[in-house]
């Protein structure tokens, strides 16, 4: 059990980072896990970079109701994403998704995932994968909407 519920996860669960909904934001999404009823409302704020067209994720704010895994993974996501270029965050998201859906076959790269590596144990429990991905998928959705909104004339 300690492999699944690492101390990092329990810490983020008890004290989630960047919790609450804030302005300004470019897109807000509401995602649910239909199997358990867990919910997250998440906002993303992107700002143009000075020297290229890869925007910076300047804020992720959220309200969520859910289990320790879903709450902690959303909190970890905000730590990993805020202040970084969107392309890097999406690469991290890809790595995180690959790890947690691997049924324990892919350990994950700590250099890429940071605290996200603590969720490696989730991959052995297929029923919990959706919990770990709830906030991340909400972010992906909101980021896409933000980019589309900024591209619109």
């Amino acid at each position, binding site marked *: 059990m300690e492999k699944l519920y690492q101390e990092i996860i*329990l810490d983020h669960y008890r004290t989630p980072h960047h919790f609450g909904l804030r302005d300004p934001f470019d897109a807000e999404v509401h995602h649910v896990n239909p199997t*358990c009823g867990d919910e997250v409302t998440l906002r993303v704020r992107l700002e143009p970079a000075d020297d290229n067209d890869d925007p910076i994720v300047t804020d992720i704010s959220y309200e969520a109701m859910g289990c320790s895994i879903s709450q902690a993974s959303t909190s970890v996501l905000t730590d990993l994403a805020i202040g970084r270029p969107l392309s890097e965050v999406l690469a991290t998201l890809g790595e995180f998704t690959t790890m947690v859906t691997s049924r324990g076959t892919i350990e994950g790269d700590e250099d890429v995932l940071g605290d996200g590596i603590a969720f490696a144990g989730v991959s052995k429990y297929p029923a919990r994968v959706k919990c770990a991905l709830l906030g991340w998928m909400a972010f992906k959705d909101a980021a896409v909407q933000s980019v589309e909104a900024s591209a619109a004339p």
Partner: protein
Amino acid sequence: MTDQLTASAVGAQADVIGPTAGDVPEHPVLSAAELTAAQDVPVSGAALSPADIDRIRADFPILERTVRDGKPLVYLDSGATAQRPVPVIDAEQEYVTGHNAAVHRGAHQLAEEATDFFESARQRIAAFIGAGNPDEVIFTKNATESLNLVAYSFGNATFSDQPAAQRFKLGPGDEIVVTEMEHHANLIPWQELCRRTGATLRWFKVTEDFRLDLSEIDELINARTRVVAFTHQSNVLGTINPVEILVAAAQKVGALTVLDACQSVPHMPVDVSALGVDFAAFSGHKMFGPSGVGVLYGRYDLLAAMPPFLTGGSMIEQVFIDHATFAAPPARFEAGVPMTSQAVGLGAAVDYLGDVGMKAVAAHEASLTGYALQQLSANPGLRIIGPAGTVDRGGAVSFVVDGVHAHDVGQILDDAGVQVRVGHHCAWPLHRRFGIAATVRASFALYNTPAEVDALVAAVADSQRFFGVG
């Protein structure tokens, strides 16, 4: 008496199963009188002793396995799906290895035997639930399909020009009444039927003490009411609803009653004729039978007037290139080749339950439920979502643990080998009613023991320690 019944179950288990082509089915087609007699034989109501339960457990091979690194399996999720005893597994195997053919088709010997197996199962299931006529038992793939069958048939009646179907027509001004404690399977088909026909959906609320709020029954069930669909026993709360009151109110205004009996038929004596309901639905896999088979009971005169749901082979009377007429029930509602071995297995499951006696099953589960409620209530950080006592209450025990999400409780329980369900249990509106996202649910069956309740209680306390709230 209980010794006798378990001996018979063990006897069935010991039978060598092999190719037995040419054998007559184990359960020949019975007359109505024999069916009535058969139903009366086993029930004694005598309490099952721990030794009886040990012998019953031995009939369920899966209960011997371990999970999560060698922990004994503590299976407390029978409300989701129950495990199967050897006689059920053997009955399916006997049918498949010795008698398999497409039923009601062909004139060869195997087809005759297969049809006898299938129809014998229908007769025994009809007797088990007190249906007056085996033709009132329709095989479906599960209770969800049974409930959809009724809802879609009423929807089809709305667009039918058949005189007999007119009584089921629905439209604006008509009302369908459900309850706030329904499983989605007895809610969404009615939501959708209302959407298609313009009828209005209404519902009974649930009180703070987890019972149906009947205070507005005369307003809710009124001259506009056409259907009253409700669960016999809540799959979350365990609450057993007052069928007689709801049926009387529906009958007074000429509304049809649809009973979700998924959580009652496996756990207590249910006599659909005595209850007076027009329809009842239940699933095989929740009552020691196979998955892939469910039952719709319907009053014959209603079934005979209802339009079909699924159409195609086997459900016809005559077919022309541009139209068709339909067979009498139950065939009208059993299009295509049915789930034959599953129906045979369900027949064996009702034999098994009948041999134990449903009063004895109910008494054993009530005793487990009472013990679980008592032990869990002693935990101050835990709140039972359901009636506190065993009166008008079945063996689904749902709860929330302060400070620990149901998924996390379930994970710690799973690590201890205790298999429960977590989430909203397909009753999301009920969870919303109580302002909770998810509950932990332990649900009991005949094979569970007080020691398993102890394992549950201990694992819940472990989860509180693990998350630092205990």
